[in-house]
């Protein structure tokens, strides 16, 4: 029981990182980034490639992958997303456009790495230790720690810096931001880059725990969406709590359901949450 609870908490760290990028982009640009799953997959393969070719430890590859993904995201914004109509009418179009990006990324991954399942194996992948009766793998703990650092960094960025203030302002009302001289377009492209980078980092973290193939990221995208909808938009605390709820539900479902169906729990939860609490558990909140 404690085993399960601990593993739920550790899993929640990864879920929160995955979801935050999606929530950030939706909160500021009002766009559901279906390319998010693709970027998670790209992050996983980037870590894999750096590990195989250069022998770089996956945890050390977080920084270069994040930087590269950030600029990739900015490029994607300038090239594609910027041309979309904003607001409710553009909703479905942006969905389809970013979905197309996902298809392209998947195809690229097939071409470069084939469709086989891959894993990143490090010297410490299988090491674990135990506290009382609970076994913990170092890897899961490390993922959790990295996720905490990232979330704390984001919280700091959004609440304590000038840039964060601008991002929150744009999320609230882009028109008045233009009036007071905030470069809205730059904030948009920065946010899109940041969200993309977060997705890639989540992919790196996920790659240290799970095996992956070019279809990796689809389930992760849906889980991110559950977390975003549950937690409300862009609130770091809300995201963390929602991630913990999702992780616990999944982990404890193993006790009640055959293992094959535990994967369906997330999807059912997604639909239920959307129908019952479309505003999130804690009501709609703006970033911060």
């Amino acid at each position, binding site marked *: 029981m404690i085993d399960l609870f601990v593993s739920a908490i550790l899993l929640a760290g990864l879920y929160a990182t995955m979801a935050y990028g999606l929530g950030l982009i939706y909160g500021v640009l009002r766009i559901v980034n279906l390319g998010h799953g693709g970027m998670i997959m790209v992050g996983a393969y980037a870590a894999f490639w750096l590990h195989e070719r250069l022998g770089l430890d996956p945890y050390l590859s977080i920084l270069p992958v994040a930087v590269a993904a950030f600029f990739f995201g900015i490029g994607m914004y300038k090239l594609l997303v910027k041309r979309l109509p904003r607001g409710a009418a553009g909703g479905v179009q942006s969905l389809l456009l970013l979905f197309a990006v996902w*298809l*392209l990324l998947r*195809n690229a991954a097939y071409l470069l790495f084939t469709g086989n399942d891959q894993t990143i194996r490090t010297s410490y992948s299988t090491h674990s230790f135990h506290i009382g009766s609970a076994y913990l793998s170092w890897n899961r703990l490390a993922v959790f720690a990295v996720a905490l650092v990232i979330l704390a960094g984001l919280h700091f960025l959004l609440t304590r810096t000038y840039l964060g203030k601008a991002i929150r302002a744009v999320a609230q009302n882009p028109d008045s931001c233009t009036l007071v001289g905030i470069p809205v377009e730059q904030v948009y492209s920065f946010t899109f880059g940041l969200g993309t980078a977060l997705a890639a980092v989540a992919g790196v973290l996920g790659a240290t725990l799970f095996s992956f193939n070019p279809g990796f990221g689809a389930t992760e995208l849906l889980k991110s969406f559950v977390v975003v909808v549950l937690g409300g938009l862009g609130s770091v605390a809300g995201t963390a709590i929602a991630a913990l709820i999702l992780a616990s539900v999944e982990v404890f479902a193993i006790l009640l359901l055959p293992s094959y169906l535990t*994967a369906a729990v997330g*999807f059912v939860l997604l639909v239920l949450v959307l*129908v019952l609490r479309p505003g999130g558990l804690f009501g709609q909140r703006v970033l911060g």
Partner: protein
Amino acid sequence: MISLPPWAPRRIYLAGFAIVVALIALLPFIHDNYYWHNQITFTLLIVTAALAWNWLGGLLGQVSFGHAAMFGVGGFVAARLQMSAHFPMLIGWLGGGVIAGSYALIWGHPTLRLRGPYFSIATIGVGEATRLICTYWSWLTGGSSGLSIPVDIDLKHQLYWYALGLAVLALMASYALRKSPLGLSLLAIKSDVDAAADVGVSSSRLQDLVLFLSGLTMGICGGFYASYAGFIEPVDMFGFDRSISFVLMGVIGGIGTIAGPVLGAMVFVVLKESLLAYYPQLYLGLFGISLILVILFEPLGLVGLGMRVLRKPIGERP
């Protein structure tokens, strides 16, 4: 003389349509190429499914990424009805269709209140959950190893005309849903739900109706596919790739138009066949690029492109 409703197409177009249908129906008597016979049967089936997707995705603007759920439910229910209960084929299809339509209502009635991206995301969840549950539910679906339905070779040949019949029905239904007074209500809902409600359009009832019709047709298509392929298994029937294929056909052909899904489905089948044969590794990416081009430059897809070539004003949608 049969009296037609005022929104029906002009008689000359009707006659042209009848001639085209008759030509397709007579085609197998002219050639005896099995490959083409099968290809056209399959294309007609996919055209029907794409049209059914478009009722929801195009006419109501509720883009569904989960229509494989109804396709799969229809297919497996139809197969079960024929194999275990020994119902005749058409009753099996209809049963599969009705169950699929009802299933669509069960998840769709609550989720259709969501607009735009939220609905789409919910349908991804529905599609994937259905796939997992049905793969596990081996009593219905035979589990991962699927079901084999005995195929009669003569029947398989005749299914061509059944497919043509389905496609014609779906095309007529599309026309009715687009041009009749009901179609105007749907357009109003698509443009602005609240404003439509203000002028007395019952959005939830009409959305449910369209959803049921769409699910029903999808289910019948699934049942047809089961009879036609002779073997069905959950990963293929319920797969996300299948759901995506309906979206791609609708959007690339021209979302919300009548001719669009027909064109899209034809292009899709031809492209998929030729690409899978020669460049299997490129086909996802090619559809990705087409989708990007359509969204950025030609929101009405191939139909929009055709109108631009013919210099017709976009307002006059076919």
